[in-house]
């Protein structure tokens, strides 16, 4: 039975609340939809009623069908929040483009994020990780793993990749921290974002004059060649900062919490070989799906999909967090099982927009979990689990703080 269009009291609100005490699992009400009505309407913050896609096979089909647009400014696009709408209007980038427009900009970046490039980056990521762990070890526990490890690691790595000069790191880190901050107001976030955009515009200009062997240096060459506006290049750099920071930071902390609660899994990270660690990282990505508010699209034309008529202009939310728990794809999907082959998970999405930075994210996670658990053998949470607070309301899920001791 499908829920009918508008003005129905039965149309549930999305997102639904997670169960207390089950912070690693999606909302039970949402998971139930996978079994009862895999395609149904939900209500979102702006009053619209997009379709919610929950099955793994349906999710893959929608995200590879170019009748569904990623353009945020199209009427009917189900934005995650007003903030997202505003951000995408002021600094538009290729994540909100379709077809050739999307491809043209994305292709300027993919050479930076190849599997080989990331392999070459591994020693540098290991060094950054070791330095952070050294600093942690010098402090007296308990300390916050989010503040001291999960947040700075991806921030330092992406600023190196971009080519932010060392002398500007403090400015860069502090504005990034504000931008990601939980208590930051919309106005403060806008200010921090503008500060960073201005900084990046200046940096692109400097690199046009004196080229550099880093990501911003290469974007500057595209600007010099007339393929990009300077502001577009800066917006792309800002997107990479934003996209690669919060997501990875939350996977680091939330994954660490899973490992703290499951000593046998921590042992795999501590003692396992590369393939065991790799498999563990994929399984944590699947289980946790920190980008937990779905991939959003809007229909460009009427589409008959799996027994449902989707009309042009209607919104779609592809719930990757639910697709990752589809029992047709993953046996016993709610189990964290490092021995399953989790590699077809959708934590990084699917289709042409699949996460550009996924190899970098994998690299950081593959390095940091073993390093953390090898350095601190007695690592444990310093507060009872019912005192931990989770980022339910945020676009990227995870922990606000994770006090640990050793």
């Amino acid at each position: 039975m499908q829920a009918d269009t508008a003005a129905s009291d039965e149309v549930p609100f999305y997102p639904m609340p997670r169960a207390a005490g089950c912070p690693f699992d999606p909302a039970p009400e949402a998971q139930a939809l996978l079994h009862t009505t895999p395609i149904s309407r939900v209500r979102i913050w702006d009053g619209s009623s997009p379709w919610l896609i929950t099955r793994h096979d349906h999710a893959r089909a929608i995200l590879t069908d170019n009748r569904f647009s990623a353009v945020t400014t199209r009427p009917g696009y189900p934005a995650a929040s007003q903030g997202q709408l505003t951000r995408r209007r002021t600094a538009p980038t290729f994540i909100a483009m379709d077809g050739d427009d999307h491809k043209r900009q994305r292709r300027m970046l993919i050479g930076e994020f190849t599997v080989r490039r990331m392999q070459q980056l591994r020693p540098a990521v290991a060094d950054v990780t070791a330095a952070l762990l050294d600093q942690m070890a010098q402090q007296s526990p308990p300390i916050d793993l989010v503040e001291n490890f999960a947040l700075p690691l991806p921030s330092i790595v992406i600023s190196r990749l971009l080519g932010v000069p060392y002398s500007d790191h403090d400015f860069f880190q502090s504005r990034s921290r504000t931008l990601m901050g939980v208590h930051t107001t919309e106005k403060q976030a806008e200010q921090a974002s503008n500060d960073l955009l201005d900084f990046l515009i200046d940096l692109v200009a400097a690199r046009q004059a004196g080229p550099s062997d880093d990501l911003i240096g290469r974007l500057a060459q595209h600007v010099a060649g007339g393929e990009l506006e300077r502001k577009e290049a800066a917006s792309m750099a800002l997107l990479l900062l934003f996209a690669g920071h919060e997501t990875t930071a939350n996977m680091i902390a939330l994954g660490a919490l899973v490992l703290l609660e499951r000593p046998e899994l921590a042992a795999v990270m501590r003692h396992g070989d590369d393939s065991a660690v790799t498999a563990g990282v994929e399984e944590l990505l699947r289980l946790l799906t920190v980008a937990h508010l779905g991939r959003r699209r809007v229909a460009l034309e009427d589409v008959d999909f799996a027994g449902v008529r989707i009309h042009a202009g209607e919104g779609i939310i592809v719930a990757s967090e639910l697709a990752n728990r589809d029992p047709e794809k993953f046996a016993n999907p709610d189990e964290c099982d490092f021995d399953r082959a989790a590699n077809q998970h959708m934590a990084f999405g699917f289709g042409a927009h699949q996460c550009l930075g996924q190899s970098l994210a994998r690299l950081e996670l593959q390095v940091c979990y073993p390093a953390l658990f090898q350095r601190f053998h007695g690592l444990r949470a310093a507060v009872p689990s019912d005192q931990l607070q989770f980022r339910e309301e945020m676009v990227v899920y995870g922990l606000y703080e994770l006090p640990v001791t050793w």
Partner: protein
Amino acid sequence: MGIEFHIDRDVCVGAGQCVIAAPRLFDQDMDGIVVLLHDVRSQADEISIRDAAQMCPSGAIAVRR
């Protein structure tokens, strides 16, 4: 060999999932676009191509048969 497949470099978005799934068969060029390293020579190669096609997010690697 029984498999029929097609590689479309124009559709490739450089996700690199083919390289992870089948590193002996696939690589990325300097621009990050898919490169097939050699023709299918064995049953194992066929399986690798099918795995890579499953993982490919853009449909650049497509198995017809």
